[in-house]
């Protein structure tokens, strides 16, 4: 039998539905792979072996009863630890939630379960999704399967690494400023951020409510679209969920796979061209764009003059919302409590708990956000950042009058070595230079492998108008036909 861990999710779904392989066999193969490699990769914070096998058996039993299986029934999936999973530890990679088992499921988990998908476990991330390297996890770093001495991106480094290392064919990430796409780029995987409101946030532990978007992580575009179809769509429990059907993403991915982009207009953002990207990244992206032209696409340069203010605006809006969202971690209802010695007041215990439970990056952002919302500073910081957000949205709207999609590098640099950007927080923030504008606008964007630089993966970001997620899948799938798949070398690098 072929190694099912190398198969695509679409293939696995088909094989399980046809009975060629059982869901339990597929699940066990992936659990075995995790057992083999995860001590080196450390993509997982928790592996739910029993739950996975139980879920897989249910699919096999349903098939035995003659029930029709969905396209991803029995297909394993890894879940970023920021998604609430009923009865299964959910920590957001923070000490403050150590041991917490939610009494409820996120909406996307209910949909994943209803589709018959098999959750393998919870993946590592930067604490509360704040970071671009997964170095800010309270539970140790995740290593990039391409080079174990380098970061897997962040915040969703665990989900990207799990998929890149064949520990799971699919994973869920969440993207607030690039946390699905940037890890996708640096691990040679596909990371898709749907339109904000296109996938439910109910059960996603909030970092920045107006930006957070759950989405698929996969090794190919069709698989991402299939997962998007499962998790997407209106959720009455999320007020910001768009009451509309999921765009036809699977059909778009299939259409793109024909390799024909005739009539598709692709925009290059002028303001991105001079800035930031390493030469090797810029070169790989140029080649990818040429490939798109060969497939029939037309390339147009567009101007988005306010994009240069996206990063500053983001680092005011996201920390402001986070400072409020993370207030609830106070040691009263769940999670850590420190210093309750019978003498100290609740106020002291709360402060000690939060100081002990939050890592330095989270603390930094809470303080930054508290500052930006303070009376006297609100207008200059938070208020002004929201106006910049309006201008960035206008830039996108103007650009999408000229072109169907925008493309750019996903991130300015390839996977960097551990520790190289942690001493200067702002240097870390630059990793999200190209991904952040889309979050502020709310539209969808996807990172697809575009080539390699210095032996490390480079991603191309494709951005589309809000609720036109199908467009980016079409272009991404077309690019896939022109770029040879990126396969990580056998896991190399230091091992501990």
């Amino acid at each position, binding site marked *: 039998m072929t190694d099912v861990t190398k198969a695509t999710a679409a293939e696995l779904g088909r094989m399980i539905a046809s009975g060629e392989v059982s869901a339990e066999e597929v699940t066990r193969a992936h659990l075995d792979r995790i057992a083999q490699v995860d001590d080196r990769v450390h993509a997982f914070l928790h592996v739910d072996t029993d739950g996975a096998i139980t879920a897989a058996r249910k699919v096999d039993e349903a098939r035995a009863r003659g029930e029709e299986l969905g396209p991803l029934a029995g297909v394993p999936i890894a879940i970023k630890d920021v998604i609430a999973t009923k009865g299964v530890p959910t920590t957001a990679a923070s000490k403050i939630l150590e041991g917490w088992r939610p009494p409820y499921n996120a909406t996307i988990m209910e949909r994943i379960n209803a589709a018959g998908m098999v959750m393998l476990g919870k993946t590592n991330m930067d604490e509360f999704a704040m970071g671009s390297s997964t170095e800010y996890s309270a539970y140790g770093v995740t290593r990039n399967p391409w080079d174990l001495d380098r970061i897997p991106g962040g915040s969703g480094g665990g989900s990207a690494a799990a998929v890149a290392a064949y520990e799971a064919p699919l994973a869920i990430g969440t993207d607030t400023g690039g946390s699905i796409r940037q890890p996708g780029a640096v691990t040679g995987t596909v990371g898709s951020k749907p*339109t904000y409101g296109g996938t439910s946030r109910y059960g996603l532990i909030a970092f920045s409510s107006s930006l957070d978007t759950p989405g698929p992580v996969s090794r190919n575009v069709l698989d991402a679209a299939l997962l998007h179809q499962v998790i997407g769509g209106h959720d009455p429990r999320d007020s910001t969920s768009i009451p509309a059907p999921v765009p036809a993403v699977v059909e778009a991915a299939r259409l793109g796979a024909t390799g024909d982009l005739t009539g598709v207009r692709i925009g290059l953002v002028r303001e991105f061209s001079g800035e930031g990207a390493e030469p090797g990244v810029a070169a790989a992206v140029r080649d990818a764009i040429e490939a798109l032209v060969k497939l029939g696409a037309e390339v147009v340069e567009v101007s988005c003059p306010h994009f240069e203010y996206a990063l500053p605006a983001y680092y005011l809006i996201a920390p402001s919302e986070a400072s409020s969202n993370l207030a609830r971690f106070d040691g009263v209802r769940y999670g850590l409590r420190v210093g309750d010695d019978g003498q100290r007041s609740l106020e002291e215990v709360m402060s000690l708990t939060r100081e002990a439970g939050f890592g330095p990056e989270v603390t930094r952002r809470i303080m930054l956000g508290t500052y930006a919302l303070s009376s006297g500073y609100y207008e200059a910081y938070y208020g002004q950042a929201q106006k910049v957000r309006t201008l960035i949205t206008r830039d996108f709207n103007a650009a999408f009058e000229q072109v169907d999609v925008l493309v750019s590098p996903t991130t300015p640099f390839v996977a960097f070595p551990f520790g190289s950007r942690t001493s200067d927080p702002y240097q870390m923030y630059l990793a999200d230079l190209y991904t952040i504008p889309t979050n502020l606008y709310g539209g969808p964007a996807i990172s697809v492998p575009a080539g390699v630089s210095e032996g490390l993966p480079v991603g191309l970001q494709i951005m589309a108008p809000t609720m036109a997620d199908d467009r980016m899948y079409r272009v991404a799938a077309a690019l896939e036909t022109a770029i040879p798949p990126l396969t990580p070398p056998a896991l190399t690098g230091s091992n501990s």
Partner: protein
Amino acid sequence: MAAISREEVAHLARLARLAVNETELDTFAGQLDVILQAVARVGEVAAADIPPTSHSIPLTNILRDDVVQPGLTQQEALSGAPDAQDGRFRVPRILDEEA
């Protein structure tokens, strides 16, 4: 000139209920200063007549019907509590507002 003083950082820590120690105060003050100088660039944009965006997708009036749905049991509600007593969440003494 520094964008933020050490005292302001200490004030923020109190507002945010973070028991930051003296050494950390210095570190955070330095880091926040760098970040604030960088993000203050939003002020360069002339945006006086620009409306702010709080929600990227323009939805309004998303409302729920007034119909009871099952919630959690007391046991589930208290399942994550660091300390519980008599079906309630126990907390240390609260500084009182009345003198």
